[in-house]
């Protein structure tokens, strides 16, 4: 059964906070990982791997570049779950 969008967003926000120190409430669906949150490619990969662990999904390397916004990531995880 697919995970709920709100749960994924909350979980992702915690992971982003752990990796970067960015406040969880700043991690919103419309935020761009690079332009708004200033997350670099290496931190992004750490976030991706931690999301895989937390949500039990597989996020292939070639998919990571398509995850430009928090919403992109949340939607991908929800649809893959």
């Amino acid at each position, binding site marked *: 059964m697919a995970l709920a969008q709100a749960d994924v967003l909350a979980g992702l926000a915690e992971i982003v906070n752990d990796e970067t120190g960015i406040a969880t409430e700043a991690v919103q669906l419309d935020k761009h990982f690079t332009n708004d949150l200033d997350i*670099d490619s290496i931190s992004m*990969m750490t976030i991706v791997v931690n999301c895989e662990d937390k949500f039990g999904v597989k996020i292939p*390397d070639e998919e990571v570049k398509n995850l430009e916004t928090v919403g992109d990531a949340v939607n991908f995880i929800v649809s893959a779950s």
Partner: protein
Amino acid sequence: MSRPELKQYELNKYSRIYSLGAARGELVVTNDDVAGPIDSSDEWIRQRTGIITRRRAGKDTSMMDLAVAAAKEAIANAGIQPSEIEAVVFNTITHPYLTPSAATLLAELVGANPAAAYDVSAACAGYCYGIAQADALVRSGVAKFVLVVAAEKLSDIIDPTDRSISFLLGDGAGAAIVGPSDTPGISPTVWGSDGSHWDAVSMTGSLLDFRDGKTSWPTLRQEGQTVFRWAVWEMAKVAKKALEVAGIEAKDLAALVTHQANIRIIDEMVKQLALPDSVAVARDIINTGNTSAASVPLAMHELLRTGEVKSGGYALQIGFGAGLAFAAQVVVLP
């Protein structure tokens, strides 16, 4: 009619690393020196890679010059004569001749002629591949003393405008003498490859493409995210396996010496391995940059030189890179 039975090599039970040698390029290249062409800054490079300076060799210093310097130090510190070396294993991706090998010339230049001599192409895993082979050669009785050298002049294959890897790279050489031992000195090696990511770290073109005018001088490139994921999470599994087959735990280590690719790979691996604070972690990348095959012996040499670790302790060493290829083993520090 009876015939005599064949003789085979008599086995040695154990091997160990007797000594190390190191040589770095003579130029200290700062982040400001490389930031311009990649539209970057000292701060950006420090944050993302940990590098403050990288060492590079000048135009008149060759990869072989660095290799000879490192090898001579290792031979002198081992307390053996170069004529006692029976095999030379040379790990490099920057020997500028397809043939003959770098190893035979090195053997000649350090006084080890007529040792068996050959090159290994395993990129950043090269030194650990070399130690695995030296261990096997010594314990199988094929060679009494083996000179393992890892040398790179990566500045020959960089593109100053490349943002993926060029600005990380440095030039240097590390060397080790491996020989017989009364006690265990080199654990089983956990090694392998993953050719499904053959092009994750690769050249921009082949020499044939260059000859035919289809590409400019080939330089090194990497797919940073793919490599980062593999280098941390897959290599952490390899490192754990290396501890397991060595029969020790992380707390028994004196040092962790990973390939010096990026400080964030090193830091993340430390986290994955849950290393106690008592383990010294090599971070030679800060001052030397990424020297591919040479980075593990250079980093271990530096830990010993600065007194951060002492001879006799256990060090987990792990190399990983283009191929993709990887190798890890626990060694007793020389």
